[in-house]
């Protein structure tokens, strides 16, 4: 932190508090109020964008636990999402469409898959692990494809809107509140996981595995635990995805989806929960931003013809730019901006903290 001032935490309670200053409390309150009030002012299109961002943020936060904190690279994130979505589809086919059943079931399936990937991960490092998860992604998709071909209609499975008792979750506003609230819960969960014993163990493993082992961290156990947490949360995101889209089809979970999620955590900033949310918003909103820009420029000729490659290319270019130029992501930019404001008119923080 750049703050050179004399702000010290003097009690354990203040050290444990998630929101520690008045400014942050006020800011958070304003954020919550504005999120609550948003449906009154925003169009349903804007609400849908926020909803999509929230859904993406759940997946990105889960991937951040694994890749950002524990340092285990996964190219198979889309496979876990597919697993969650198809768990829901299977339950719907079995005439058990209740979300009270589907969400825990998706979490269980995800956790089981996490153990399956996590155990080979004990032997494999870096690239080899990424490849293993990539292969697993294809295997999961194969299983889902078989299910879709044999039991679903060939194109996919439609999912009825989730129903709790007599209340049916339907419509843009209801989905907006539900998914934003769930994303908020997952955000709190992931921040707390990061501060807990498990989170500290993950970061130690990420930074240097041998050193982590020598200070008594059970590396094998915590690695598998990271996979289990991440894949369980991701599968829940997949189940929510299935309910929200009301349709599940294998085509939606290609390799590109996994790349999109990796792009979210990298563009946002690896290892930071705030970064995962920012990255999710960035990657989700980018194609709509390009749409709006093209519409505003009034480019003549068949725009739809080059719009797709344009979005695709812009995505690739931005991801490459962040990887090469700003490895700390959006969070890095935010931190630099904040330090600049706090330290102004000085450029560097004092060498010795003012005591």
């Amino acid at each position, binding site marked *: 932190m750049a703050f050179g001032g004399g702000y010290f935490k003097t009690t354990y309670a203040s050290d444990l508090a998630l929101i520690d200053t008045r400014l942050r409390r006020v800011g958070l309150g304003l954020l919550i109020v504005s999120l609550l009030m948003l449906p009154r002012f925003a169009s349903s299109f804007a609400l849908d964008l926020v909803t999509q961002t929230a859904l993406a943020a759940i997946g990105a936060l889960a991937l951040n636990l694994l890749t950002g904190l524990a340092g285990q*690279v996964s190219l198979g994130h889309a496979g876990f999402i597919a697993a969650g979505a198809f768990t829901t589809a299977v339950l719907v086919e079995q005439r058990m469409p209740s979300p009270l059943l589907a969400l825990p079931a998706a979490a269980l399936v995800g956790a089981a898959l996490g153990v399956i990937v996590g155990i*080979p991960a004990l*032997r*494999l*490092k*870096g*690239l*080899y692990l*990424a*490849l*293993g998860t*990539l*292969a*697993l992604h*294809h*295997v999961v*998709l*194969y299983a889902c*494809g*078989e299910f879709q*071909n044999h039991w679903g209609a060939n194109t996919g499975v439609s999912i009825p809107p989730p129903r709790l008792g007599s209340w049916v979750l339907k419509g843009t506003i209801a989905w907006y509140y539900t998914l934003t609230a769930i994303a908020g819960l997952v955000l709190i969960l992931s921040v707390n996981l990061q501060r807990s014993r498990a989170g500290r163990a993950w970061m130690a493993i990420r930074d240097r595995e041998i050193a982590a082992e020598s200070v008594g961290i059970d590396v094998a156990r915590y690695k598998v635990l990271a996979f289990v947490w991440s894949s369980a949360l991701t599968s829940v995101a997949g189940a929510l995805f299935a309910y929200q889209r009301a349709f599940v089809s294998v085509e939606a979970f290609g*390799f590109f989806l996994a*790349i999109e999620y*990796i792009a979210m955590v*990298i563009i946002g900033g690896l290892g930071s929960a705030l970064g995962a949310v920012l990255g999710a918003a960035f990657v989700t909103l980018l194609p709509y931003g390009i749409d709006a820009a093209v519409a505003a420029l009034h480019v003549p000729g068949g725009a739809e*013809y*080059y719009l*797709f*490659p*344009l979005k*695709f*290319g812009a*995505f*690739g*270019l931005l*991801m*490459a730019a962040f*990887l*090469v130029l700003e*490895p700390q992501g959006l969070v890095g930019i935010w931190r630099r901006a904040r330090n600049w404001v706090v330290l102004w008119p000085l450029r560097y923080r004092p060498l010795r903290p003012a005591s």
Partner: protein
Amino acid sequence: MTQVLATTVVVASLYALLAAGYVLVYRATRVLNLAQGDMMTLGGYFLFLVAATVPGRPVLSVVTAAVLSAAAGFAIYRLLMRPMAGHPIFAAVLVTVTLGILLRAAIVLVYTDRIRHPLPLLGLANPPRRLPGGAVVSTFDLLTVAAAAALFLGLFAFLRLSPLGIQMRAAGEKALLAAQRGINFQLLFALSWALAGFAGALAGILYANNVRLDPSLGILGLKAFAVALVGGLDSLGGVIPGALIVAAIEVLSVRYGDPLLADVSPFLCLLAMLLVRPWGLFGTREELERV
């Protein structure tokens, strides 16, 4: 039975061409080039470009497309991969992923995603041939096998016999030591990328003539990646048995299982190999510790 055998060898040849690209790049720079499949597509479209400009000149078109692809490989190293030196390996791998996305976007931008057939533009035909055992393959199938054999013979000769090839092996083994002996390892790394581009282009050119050309051919590259890993990521010789094994399993699962299973079978091979022998059949064991 002979048909299965013949198909296996043909599929294995295509995979071997692609996997050679992975191994060449990996040996030099320890980076997995996940854009190899898209470099193959690029080679196919270079062929289409040349064939559409000067129709009816097959040799000229193929040579120009291959040279252009090699140049593209060289340029990719200089512009995109060299700045990644010193960054974590995984960041470099992700850059190759984005490279694949960019290549595909560029191809769709220029050529749309319609399926193309360069064969008539070249003025060639692709008649089926009956082999001695009764198996039937297309002419370009035979050419694929010939190209793979020629590429591998050429690569082995180059790496064993020519001074440049020996320098390339040295630079791949230990860039620092090689640099101290006065070897320009940056040039050799770029050359490895160029060779990978060339091998990918061969695969792309043959596949475009034999089957079709569309921007999503790159998917094949992921399958060929399983081949490289089964053989051992740093072993060029391992590519051939690796390709034969993966192709045989894929062909057999088409015949006795279903097409979906065949699509996923290379990845099952990959997973099995990772669990049993992560460094591959002929790879170096300590490779695993270095990544």
